[in-house]
C-alpha cells in the first residue's frame, strides 16, 4: 500500500449542531473533495455513533480508502474510537488522522457570531493540514507488553483500602503504600461517619463477608496477597504499564511490628510528652505512642522528632522490639498497575474568621475529634478555652471553598459534616443552640436530606449569610457580624465557632504528580482521563485514581470509586498483557553519527549506544520526540510525528496563504 498513492477519505461531522451551528459542514466536506489524494469526502450527523462508524467502514470498502480523516471533536476524546473503527475495516490505526473542528473551531468561536464564515475557512485549513499530513502517515505496528498481576496502591484511606482488598480478593498481589504510620486515612479520624452513623474505622466487607469489618481486625495485614508499607512514600517512579518501577522509602518506626507484643511498657516508661496530633492537641501522647487507639498496624510508633533517645523504652521492652537507631529503609518494587488514592487535606483557615487567633474557633475535623466518644474529651462537647459546654455553637460553611480567594471548588462534604455534627449536638445537648451560616445547603447523596430534616426538626438554625467579621469578647465568646444586602448589620454571639474548611489536595500531591507524571487541575487535584466517562483513568495507561485525590468526595463515593479503580486496574492485569503501539523513536543507523545527543536527553533512558550508533528500547520509549530535535544528523525520528509529517502538516495548514484574502 505504501507504494501506491494514498487514497484518503474525509468524514466531516456535524456533531448534531455542535459543529454545524458554526461551521458549514457540507461546504467543508465539499472542499475536502478538491484536496490532493482525497477520493471520498462526506459529512455525518454523529460520526462517532455506531451508525457513523459503520458508514466509515462501508466507505473504506467502497472506495478502497487507505487513509481516513475524521474532522470532528478533540482526538483526546475519540481518537481511540476511530482507530478501532478503521482497524476493524482493515486499515492500520495510524493511517487515521483526526481533525478537531469542534473544540478548536465551532465551540471556540461560537460566540463570534459574525465570523462564522471565517470559522468555516479555519475548518477547511485544519482539514487541509490533516489531508497533507495523512498522505505521509506510515503504518505502525504494535508489540505486547506483559502486565504482571501486581498493583501498587498509594494511600491507605478508605478508597485505597477498598481497592486493595478487592484486588487481593480477585487474586492480585497488592503493594499498599501509606505515608502515615497507620492505615485508615481521614475517615479513621471521624468518630461517626455520615448517613449510616457507622464508626470511622469500619472498612468495606471483603469477599464472602456480608458486613463491614473493623479495620483493626487486621484483615489487610494478614492477607498474604497484600504487602503493607507504612510511613512510606514513593521516592522514584519510572516505567510504563506492565513495568512500573517504584522505589519506596520508609521512615523508621523504631518498633518492630512483628516482635512487639503490644504490652505497652514502652509507653509507660517514656518520659516525653507532646500534644497528640490525632486529637489536635486535646491530649498529650508519649514519644512512643499508638497513632490512634484503633491504629493498624497495631504496634506503637516512635516519633523521632520528639524522642530524646533516652533508651528507657528499649530497656523496658520485654521482647527487644525497639530499635532507637533504626534507619530508613528502601525497597524497589515492580508493578503492573498503579492506583493513586492519596486523599485530601483539610484547608487550614489561618487568618479567616479568627482561626488561629481565638482559641474557640476550630474546624469541623477538630469538632469530630471532640465529639468522638473515644476522644480525650470523652465525647463531651466543650469549648477549648474553658472546657465548658458551649451554649451557642456557630458553624460557618464554605471556608476556603467556593471562594475565589482560596479554592473555587465546592468541597461537597462540608454540608454533610456540619449537619451531622449539628444533629449530634442537638440530640445530646438539646439546650445548646446551633446556628449554621451557609451559602447553599448541599446534601447530594442517597437519603442524605434526612439529616437536614432532622436538623430542622431539632431546632438547628440556618442563616443564608456571609459572615463579615468575627470578634472575640472578654469571656472568650465570639461575635459574628453579618452584612445584609440592604446595608444593615446583624450580630450573632456564639461560644464555639466551627469552620467547615475546604477539602484541598493532599500535601505532597504536586510532588507525587511530578513523580508519577500525573496531570493536575487548577485546584491541584489529580486530573482524570475524562470527567464524565473515565473518572478513574488517567492519561497514563496503567495508572488509575481513587477517592478524594481527584476531587472532594465523601466516604461512600471514595469507597465505590476505589472499587471502580480496582476494576479498571484489573482489566490489563486479567489479560496479562497490553498492546503497546510502536509510535516510538526509530534510528536510521546509516545516518547516525554516534554523537549520543539523543541518549543524553532521553528522560526515560530508552536510548543506549551500541556499536557507535544509538538504539531505542521501544517499550521504554514514550514517544515524546525530544531526541529528534536534538539529533544533528536527522538520524532519529519519531514515528507518527516525523519531521516530514509535521512539515507537510504546516504546509497544508498554510497552503492558502496569499492565495486569496481570508
Amino acid at each position, binding site marked *: 500500500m505504501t507504494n501506491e498513492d494514498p487514497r484518503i477519505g474525509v468524514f466531516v461531522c456535524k*456533531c448534531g449542531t455542535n459543529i454545524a451551528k458554526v461551521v458549514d459542514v457540507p461546504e467543508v466536506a465539499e472542499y475536502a473533495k478538491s484536496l490532493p489524494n482525497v477520493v471520498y469526502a462526506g459529512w455525518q450527523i454523529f460520526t462517532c455513533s455506531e451508525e457513523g462508524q459503520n458508514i466509515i467502514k462501508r466507505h473504506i470498502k467502497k472506495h478502497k480508502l487507505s487513509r481516513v480523516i475524521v474532522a470532528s471533536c478533540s482526538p483526546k476524546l475519540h481518537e481511540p474510537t476511530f482507530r478501532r473503527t478503521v482497524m476493524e475495516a482493515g486499515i492500520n490505526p495510524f493511517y487515521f488522522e483526526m481533525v478537531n473542528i469542534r473544540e478548536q473551531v465551532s465551540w471556540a468561536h461560537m460566540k463570534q457570531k459574525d465570523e462564522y464564515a471565517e470559522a468555516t475557512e479555519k475548518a477547511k485549513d485544519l482539514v487541509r493540514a490533516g489531508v497533507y499530513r495523512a498522505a505521509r502517515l506510515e503504518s505502525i505496528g504494535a508489540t505486547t507488553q506483559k502486565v504482571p498481576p501486581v498493583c501498587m496502591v498509594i494511600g491507605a484511606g478508605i478508597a485505597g483500602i477498598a481497592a486493595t482488598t478487592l484486588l487481593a480478593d480477585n487474586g492480585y498481589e497488592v503493594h499498599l503504600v501509606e505515608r502515615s504510620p497507620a492505615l485508615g486515612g481521614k475517615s479513621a479520624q471521624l468518630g461517626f461517619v455520615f448517613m449510616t452513623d457507622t464508626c470511622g474505622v*469500619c472498612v468495606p466487607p471483603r469477599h464472602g463477608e*456480608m458486613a463491614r*469489618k473493623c479495620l483493626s481486625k487486621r484483615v489487610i495485614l494478614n492477607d498474604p496477597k497484600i504487602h503493607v508499607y507504612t510511613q512510606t512514600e514513593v521516592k522514584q517512579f519510572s516505567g510504563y504499564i506492565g513495568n512500573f518501577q517504584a522505589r519506596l522509602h520508609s521512615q523508621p518506626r523504631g518498633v518492630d511490628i512483628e516482635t512487639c507484643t503490644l504490652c505497652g511498657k514502652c509507653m509507660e516508661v517514656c518520659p516525653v510528652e507532646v500534644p497528640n496530633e490525632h486529637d489536635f492537641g486535646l491530649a498529650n501522647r508519649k514519644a512512643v505512642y499508638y497513632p490512634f487507639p484503633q491504629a493498624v498496624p497495631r504496634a506503637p510508633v516512635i516519633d523521632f522528632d520528639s524522642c530524646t533517645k533516652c533508651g528507657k523504652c528499649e530497656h523496658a521492652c520485654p521482647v527487644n522490639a525497639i530499635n532507637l537507631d533504626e534507619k530508613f529503609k528502601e525497597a524497589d518494587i515492580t508493578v503492573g498497575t498503579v492506583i493513586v488514592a492519596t486523599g485530601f487535606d483539610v484547608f487550614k483557615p489561618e487568618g479567616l474568621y479568627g482561626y488561629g487567633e481565638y482559641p474557640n474557633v476550630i474546624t469541623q475535623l477538630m469538632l469530630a475529634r471532640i465529639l468522638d466518644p473515644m476522644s480525650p474529651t470523652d465525647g463531651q462537647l466543650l469549648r477549648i478555652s474553658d472546657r465548658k459546654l458551649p451554649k451557642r455553637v456557630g458553624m460557618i460553611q464554605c471556608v476556603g471553598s467556593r471562594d475565589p480567594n482560596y479554592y*473555587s471548588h465546592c468541597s461537597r462534604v462540608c454540608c454533610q459534616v456540619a449537619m451531622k455534627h449539628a444533629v449530634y449536638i442537638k440530640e445530646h445537648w438539646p439546650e445548646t443552640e446551633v446556628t449554621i451560616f451557609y451559602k447553599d445547603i448541599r446534601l447530594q447523596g442517597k437519603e442524605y436530606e434526612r439529616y437536614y430534616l432532622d436538623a430542622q426538626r431539632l431546632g438547628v438554625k440556618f442563616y443564608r449569610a456571609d459572615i463579615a467579621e468575627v470578634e472575640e469578647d472578654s469571656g472568650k465568646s465570639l461575635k459574628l457580624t453579618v452584612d445584609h444586602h440592604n446595608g444593615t448589620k446583624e450580630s450573632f454571639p456564639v461560644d464555639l465557632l466551627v469552620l467547615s474548611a475546604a477539602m484541598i489536595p493532599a500535601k505532597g500531591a504536586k510532588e507525587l504528580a511530578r513523580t508519577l507524571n500525573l496531570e493536575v487541575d487548577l485546584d491541584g487535584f489529580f486530573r482524570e482521563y475524562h*470527567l464524565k466517562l473515565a473518572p478513574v483513568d488517567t492519561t497514563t495507561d496503567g495508572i488509575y485514581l481513587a477517592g478524594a485525590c481527584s476531587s472532594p468526595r465523601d466516604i461512600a463515593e471514595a469507597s465505590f470509586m476505589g472499587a471502580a479503580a480496582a476494576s479498571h486496574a484489573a482489566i490489563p492485569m486479567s489479560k496479562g498483557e497490553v498492546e503497546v503501539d510502536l509510535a516510538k523513536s526509530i534510528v536510521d543507523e546509516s545516518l547516525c553519527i554516534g554523537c549520543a545527543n539523543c541518549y543524553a536527553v532521553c528522560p526515560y533512558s530508552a536510548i543506549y549506544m551500541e556499536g557507535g550508533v544509538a538504539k531505542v528500547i521501544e517499550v521504554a520509549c514514550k514517544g515524546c520526540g525530544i531526541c529528534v530535535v536534538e539529533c544533528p544528523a536527522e538520524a532519529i525520528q519519531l514515528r507518527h510525528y516525523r519531521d516530514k509529517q509535521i512539515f507537510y502538516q504546516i504546509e497544508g495548514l498554510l497552503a492558502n496563504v496569499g492565495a486569496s484574502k481570508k
Partner: protein
Amino acid sequence: MKIGVLLCNCGDTISTTLDYEALTSFIQTLPNVKYAETRGDWCQRESLQILTQTITKKKLDRLVIAACSPHLFGTRFYDAAEEAGMTRGQITFANIREHCAWVHKENPQGATAKAKRLIRSAVFRVAAQSPTTTKTFPVTQEVLVLGAGIAGIQAALDLADRGIKVHLVEKEPTIGGHMAVLNKTYPTLDCSICILGPKMAEAATHPNIELYPYTDLVDAENLGKDWLLTLNKKATYVDWDKCTGCMQCTEKCPTRVDDEWSWNIAKRRAIYMPFSQSVPRKVTIDAEHCKMLTDGKCGVCAKICPAEAIDYEMKDEIIKVEVGCVILATGFKEFDPSVVPELHFEENPDVITQMQFIRMMDSVGPFGGKLEVPSDGRKPEKIVMLQCVGSRDERYSWQCSSYCCMAAIKHAELAKLEYDPNIDITIVARDIRAGGKGFEEFYVRARDEYNIKVVYRGDDLEIVQKNGKLVVRYSDPDGSTKSLAADLVVLSCAMTPSPGTQELANLFGVPLGSLGFYKALDEKVALSRTDVNSVYLAGTCHGPKDIPESVELAGAAAEQASVWLSTQTVSKDLDTAIVNTDLCNSCGLCISACPSQAISLDKKNECVIVDEVRCQGCGECMAICPVGAIGPLNTNPTVLDSALEGLLSNSIEGSDSVIVGFACNECVYRAIDEAGEERLQYPADLHILEVPCTGSVSTPKVLQTIEDGATGVILFACDSKLCHYGRGARMANSRAQVVRNVLTQSGKDPNLVQVAQLIGRDAKEFAAIAQKAVASIQRSNRS
C-alpha cells in the same frame, strides 16, 4: 482427644497480676489436657516454631492459647498450628491479658480465679469444637447486566474487557438509557451522545457481550451459587436481521402516538426508532398502537419496507440463561409532576419538565432543535425553572435528587448559548447544589457570565394563570410571597425508582430502601453490593446519581462481580452454620431470621439447608431455632454449653460470683480489648464469652445460664445501627427485654440480666457499663 494448653505470661505483663503457679497446676487438673507449657513469648517466631513441632510430636488435636486477644496475634497461632496440620476449628483462645490480667490489677486473687475459669471454659469448649474444612464452589463465569443505560453499559464493558461473558439486557428497543438523550452533559458540555455513542457501539459489538434489546427479565431462580434467569425477548414485529434502519417505514406509518423518548412532548409513529443514534439501529413496532396488529387493517410498513423485514406474526421468545451473578442497573424514571396540584402541569402546555426541555432543544431530537413556547410557538423571552419538584418535598420524596440543580443550570446555559443570550432565565431553587468536580465553577460561570438568575424559595410554590400568562408564585425565605412572570416554566423533577423495581427486588430478594430504590448492603462502604451475595447494583437504581458517579458505581459493581466469579475457591474456613438433620423439623423460623438469606428448605421439606457461601456464621439461626438443630459449626449449642459449663462449674477458690458477658466478636470484643490496652479496671466477676454476634444468644440460653448458676448475665451488643449482621444487636436487645420481662413476672429481679449497646471502639464506655452492670447485678443478688 489430646488438648494442648499454651500459657503465656507476655514478658511479665500478665504474670504480675496472675498467680502462674496456681494456673499451671490448675491446668494439669483439666480433662484431656496432654500438654501445657508456659512461656513469656508465645507469639514470637521461635516459640511458634516450637509450637508447630510440639503439635506434631505430641499428636495434639486441640489447642488452647491462654494469652492475649485472638484479634491481635490469632493468625500467627493459626498459621503455626496449620503448619502442623491443625485447622482453625481445633483452636480456642482464652484471653487472659486484655480481658483479665490488665483489667483486674487491683484484684490479683479474683483475676487468677477468673483466668482459671476462662482457661477451663476454653478447654471444655475446644473439646466440643470440630475441625473446619475448605470447600470450593464453582461459579458460572458469566454475568447478567440488567439495564443498558450508561451504568449497565459501563459495567458490561468493564467485565467484558476482562474476558468475562456478559448478557446485557435492556427492556427498550435501544440501549443508552437516559444519557443518550441528554443532549449535553455538565460541567463540560460534552455532547452526551458523542461520549456515550462509542460506548454503545462498543457494547453492541464486543465479542464478550451478548446484547438482548427489547427484552424483559421475567423470572429469576436462585440455584445457590448461580442464577437461572428467564428472559422474555419481546416481539418487535420487525426482523432485525433484515432491517437496515432506513426509516422509510417510520415516515409512512399513519399512526402517531406520544413519543416516550421525548417525554410525550412530541409524537412518534407506531413503527419507530427511539432516537436517531439508537443501538441497534433497527425499528420496532409498538404493538399497542399499530393498526395492523390491533385492527388488522393497514400494513403500510410491510408494503414500504425494501428489506421485507416486517413480520406481523412475530411472537415473544423465552430465553433462559444461567449466570454466576447479576448486576442491576435499571436506572430511574423522571418524577411525574402532574400529581403536584399547584403546578397545573397537565392543564398548561407551557409548563414542561427538564427532560422535555432538553429534548426540545436537542438538535437531533424530535424538534430538530428549537426553543419555543409549546402553546403558540413563539420564542420565549422569560423562562423560569422550578427546582425540587417531587424531591425535598415530604409529600412525594424528601430526598434530594442531586442532579437537577446542575441539569437546570446546564439547560439554562444551553438556551442562552445556543438560542438567545437575551432570554431572561431565572432558577427558583431551595439551594443550588453544585457539589462535584467542576460543578461549582460551572455554576459560577452560568451565574456571572451568562447572567442566569438564581432566587431562593421557601416551601410554597405555585403556578397560576394570569391574563393568559404564566406566573410563578413562591415564598421568599424571608416569608414574603414573590411572583415571576414566565413564557415557559421548566420543572426540575425528581429521580424516582424505575417502574418494576419492586418486582425485581422481590425476584432477587434484594430489599428496597425507604424511598423505593434498591438498598445497598452498606450505604457507606458497600454501595454496589446488596444483601444478596451475587446481586450487585450500578447506577441510579441505587439512588439519585449523576453520570460520573454512575460510571464509578458501575465499575465498582463490575469489580465486585468479578471477585465473585474469580474466587471459585471460597475458603470457608469459618464457622458456617450446620444443621442437625435429626433434630430439624423444618419449621422455617431460621429462614426468616437469617440476615444473609443463606438458609432454605430442602427439596423434600424435611429440613433446612445452609448455603455455605452466603452464610456468615452469625448464629442468628441458632438463637431462633426452638429445638437447637442449627448453629455455626464451632459456636453451636453444644459448644456454647461446654463453654458455659467451663465457666460455671463450681470449685474455683476465691471466686463465688460468675457474671457471664456474652460479647459479639466484632465491635464489642474490640472495645473490650481496647479497655485492656488502656488498663481500664472493672470487677473480675465479669467473664466474657465470645459469640459471633450477640443476636445469636437466645432467651432460653440466657435463662439457662442463670439456672446453671451464673450470678448474672450481660449481653454486650453493638449499637443497633452498627450491627454487622443488620439486626443482631436489635435481637439481643429485644431478647434481653423478654428475659427481663420473664424475670419480673416470675417475681425475680430483672436486673440479673443486663443488656448494653456500645460502639466498637468505645473502651471507656465498656468499662463504665461493665462496672455499672456488675454492681447492679450484685445488688439484686444481695437483695
